[in-house]
């Protein structure tokens, strides 16, 4: 759990030390404030605290990358007719790599995907990661993000399309 949280924080702040601090803060807040809650509620509460801690960091630093948001919002508009998801080839072979060369390729692919996830606008990334990485349903994601279920769907859809387009642009087919 803490490794995924660390990665989420790292995507957001792009600094290992700050990401570690954020995860540590979030875990402490969870333990101190919600330690008496039922175990089933804790992962969801942790997600909410983690997202809030990341947002607090943004507020403090005031370094929200506006240009990333703008670029991301503009990129699908240029190629609206073509759905990048349709062009992606999903093959089973991509999952499993055996030779050192394939493992290196896989490691590079992980790096690229993480980089592209990191480039997503904050809200899109939050929604995408909670929904598809943390396996939260739409209602839970909306509650954690403090927005409507419709917004979650929109964020997730935009995030997935942006990722598909970015990977396609780098010649990657999953």
């Amino acid at each position, binding site marked *: 759990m*803490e*490794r*995924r949280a*660390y*990665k989420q924080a790292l995507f957001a702040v792009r600094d*290992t030390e700050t990401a*570690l601090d954020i*995860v*540590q803060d979030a*875990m*402490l807040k*969870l*333990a*101190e*404030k919600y*330690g*008496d809650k039922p175990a089933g509620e804790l992962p969801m509460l942790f997600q909410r605290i983690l997202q809030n801690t990341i947002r607090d960091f943004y507020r403090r630093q005031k370094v929200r990358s506006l240009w990333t948001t703008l670029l991301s919002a503009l990129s699908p508009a240029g190629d609206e007719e073509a*759905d990048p*998801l*349709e062009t*992606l080839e*999903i093959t089973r072979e*991509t*999952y499993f790599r055996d030779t050192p060369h394939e493992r290196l390729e*896989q*490691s590079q*692919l*992980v*790096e690229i*995907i*993480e980089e592209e*996830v990191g480039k997503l606008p904050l809200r899109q990334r939050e929604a*995408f*990661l909670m*929904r*598809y*990485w943390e396996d939260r349903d739409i209602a839970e994601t909306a509650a954690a993000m403090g927005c409507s279920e419709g917004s979650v769907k929109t964020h*997730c*859809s935009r995030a*997935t*399309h942006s*990722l*598909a387009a970015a990977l396609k642009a780098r010649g990657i087919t*999953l």
Partner: protein
Amino acid sequence: MNRERELAHKIRHYLNLGADEVDRGTADRLFAARRSALARQKTANAQRTLAGIGHIAAEAVLPRVKALIAIAGLITGVVGVSLWNDAEKTAELEEIDIALLADDLPINAYLDKGFQTWISEHPSQD
């Protein structure tokens, strides 16, 4: 929608691989942070048992007490202003009555037709 989900799950697979590949030093620090948080959780629970009732009572009652004090202050202010106005009006009327009784009214008062009508309707009891 299905393509979206399919791609998302593909990406999730690579994100999981990335999380598994976190370097040893970072993994150790994350584990230490987790242990530290768990230790803090025990402390928090212990404090709750010792200071429990007082703490809960303070948390629940204090915000309401503050609101009640604010409302009471507001009501006192409104009532105070109203009483002050009444007192001023009474004082003015008292002054007129005294002047009337002392036959000390200004000449303008007798030029007021309304006042003369009032005098004729209310003849002196003397």
